[in-house]
């Protein structure tokens, strides 16, 4: 036992002897996690100002309807509406200064009014958008639909323009020889009733509009509730980013362990270690334990910082959180040993394993959550150990899951540990060419 403990103690002494490297190994993930956490919503603060999308509305019609649509868009809390010429707007979209430019064409009001009650040609609103913000286009289109429906229907039920268009529509129906008589009568009655309603609304214009004169609106409202670990506990974006950066930098630490072991095998120190009466299991096992301890130390520092500065709490099972971190640390150590076992030259191994690590980090959701991945990719990530680490860390921090949620990620991480460990032991080259 003395040699085994001495080997672990030596690894820890060497790790902490390079204080600058230790500090950088902690500071860099803290800075990155803090920055990414801020971008991903921080610790539950209001992001209204940040998330307002800059758009330009170009009203080429300048009718009552087009003005109403522009007003509706301007009043929307998610949009920051500006005005510009078409050329200016196109340039601003190209430069990424605005997300989209909404162009309301000439005669939009008249055409939209006709199309509201009849099968007349619908006018088209052109939207120029920044393709790098494709996801936001859906939201802009939804907001635009609501604004157009409300603007057009309000004018049609209570505006002067609406009354004129109803008169024209009634005349068209009367002169239409193809429409069946029963349909003619029903549609004429409907429009006549709307005409009377509109005239009454026009006479009482100072009164508060009621009924359809408000314009057609979406017939429901949504109330939202972020389901977190408990009532009144808000989602904390820092929980995910600190977990992600912790996972990334611990994997790099595991990689470093592998590279160092490769270097050690080429040095006199390896000969001295192998000359001593120590088992191979002790040599590799001690390195696994010391790497796991260092990994645990890094996670502890990161989450202590996150707790003190960003109020990241372990809302779920603390034991579950520790179990996931411990399993991930062991997996990282086994990964490092596998790198040392499979690597031949330091240079070649470093390049290949950095790439493998970055892929694991990316697919594991350490940079961006896996739910934004395509479905097929989300399924593929079950073979990536970092995904289970991230699921576990998210689960026990802001999701507030209980201990029963630990078995799957811990089990998967231990399975990967076993797999990497077996490869490392089978492939490790104990003899060195002298």
């Amino acid at each position, binding site marked *: 036992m003395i040699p085994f403990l001495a080997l672990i103690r030596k690894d820890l002494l*060497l790790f902490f002897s390079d204080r600058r490297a230790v500090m950088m190994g902690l500071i860099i993930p803290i800075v990155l996690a803090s920055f990414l956490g801020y971008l991903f919503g921080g610790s539950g603060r209001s992001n209204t100002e940040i998330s307002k999308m800059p758009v330009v509305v170009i009203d080429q019609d300048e009718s009552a309807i087009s003005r109403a649509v522009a007003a509706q868009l301007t009043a929307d809390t998610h949009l920051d509406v500006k005005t510009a010429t078409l050329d200016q707007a196109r340039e601003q979209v190209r430069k990424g200064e605005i997300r989209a430019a909404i162009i309301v064409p000439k005669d939009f009001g008249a055409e939209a009014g006709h199309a509201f009650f009849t099968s007349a040609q619908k006018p088209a609103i052109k939207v120029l958008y920044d393709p790098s913000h494709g996801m936001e286009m859906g939201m802009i289109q939804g907001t635009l639909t609501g604004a157009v429906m409300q603007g057009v229907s309000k004018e049609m039920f209570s505006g002067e323009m609406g009354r004129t268009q109803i008169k024209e529509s009634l005349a068209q129906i009367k002169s239409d020889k193809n429409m069946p008589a029963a349909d003619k009568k029903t549609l004429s009655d409907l429009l006549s009733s709307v005409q009377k309603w509109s005239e009454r609304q026009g006479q009482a214009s100072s009164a508060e509009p009621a009924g359809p004169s408000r314009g057609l609106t979406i017939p429901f409202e949504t109330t939202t509730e972020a389901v977190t670990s408990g009532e009144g506990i808000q989602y904390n974006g820092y929980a995910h980013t600190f977990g992600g950066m912790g996972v990334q930098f611990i994997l790099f630490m595991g990689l470093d362990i592998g590279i160092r072991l490769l270097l050690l095998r080429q040095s006199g120190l390896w000969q*001295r270690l192998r000359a001593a009466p120590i088992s191979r299991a002790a040599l590799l096992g001690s390195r696994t334990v010391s790497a796991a301890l260092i990994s645990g130390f890094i996670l502890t520092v990161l989450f202590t910082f996150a707790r003190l500065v960003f109020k990241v709490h372990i809302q779920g099972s603390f034991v579950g959180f520790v179990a996931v971190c411990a399993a991930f640390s062991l997996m990282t150590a086994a990964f490092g040993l596998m790198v040392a076992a499979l690597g031949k030259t330091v240079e070649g191994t470093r390049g290949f394993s950095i790439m493998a690590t970055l892929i694991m980090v990316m697919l594991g959701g350490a940079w961006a959550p896996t739910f934004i991945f395509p479905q097929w990719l989300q399924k593929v990530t079950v073979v990536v150990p970092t995904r289970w680490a991230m699921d576990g860390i998210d689960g026990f921090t802001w999701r507030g899951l209980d201990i029963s949620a630990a078995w799957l990620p811990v089990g998967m991480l231990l399975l990967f540990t076993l797999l990497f460990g077996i490869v490392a032991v089978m492939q490790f080259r104990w*003899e060195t060419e002298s």
Partner: protein
Amino acid sequence: MLEARGLKKSFGKIVAVDGVSLRAGAAETIGLLGPNGAGKTTTISMIVGLIRPDAGEILIDGRPLRGDTDPVKRKIGLVPQDMALFDELSALANLQFFGALYNMSGAVLTRAIDDALNLVGLADRAKDRVKGFSGGMKRRLNLAAALLHDPQILLLDEPTVGVDPQSRNAIFENLETLKKRGKTLIYTTHYMEEAERLCDRIIIIDHGKVIADDTLHGLHKLLPVTNVLAIELDSPDGFDPNWLKALPEVESVELRDRLLRVGVHDLSSGAPAILCWLSEKGQPYQHVASERPDLETVFLTLTGRSLRDAR
């Protein structure tokens, strides 16, 4: 006692060691001499269990090494050719670690560390980080690390590479002390003078094979000459050294730059004859010295190549 029989080791198509055998008794110092790549380090690595031989066996006190954790390993101390120290740790922390590898702890380890540091003269630098040490100090600490568990057999793989003469002398004194304590030393080097000074017996290895195994005196007997007369000529232009071979006293002759080296069996008769011959031929010289042939000459005689050329 250490005994190696018929050791063979190949790396791919390269035969590194080809049938090396050696024996080393208590308090005996064996020199493994040969150029770089001769197979010295591979032989040492097999003896200490770092490399498994393709053929042959190694016996320590009559029994073979069984596995990584065989307690017999405690009888062996290894001083690797590469510096086997952690630069970031203090000398004391290094020795504590290496001692613990042999299951040492507490007062026993502390005493062993004190003894080792005192032997190599680094007791006052125990708490200093190794990265601040000179090359010579590191070499001495490298030696100390192999002594902590008081091994009976010490394998030293070129322990003086890259050190200044003063440190080399200090290491020699350490090794002579160990020799007096009855330790068996196996010492690999390609420095002749080290082997001549330290070793009771010298094994010359070349291309993985033992080409000589004898005492220094015994190796000298292998030579065709017992002395060399070194004469510095004034001007060797037009002088053909082979002319000297006509003299019956002359066994060998070599001219490099202005230095004429003539091998003779009997210096008392050979030297006057050669100097007289040079005077008669009108070949002036500036300096005359006599040399005993060294191991370089032995190697040259046995292999046809000089050690320096072979490296």
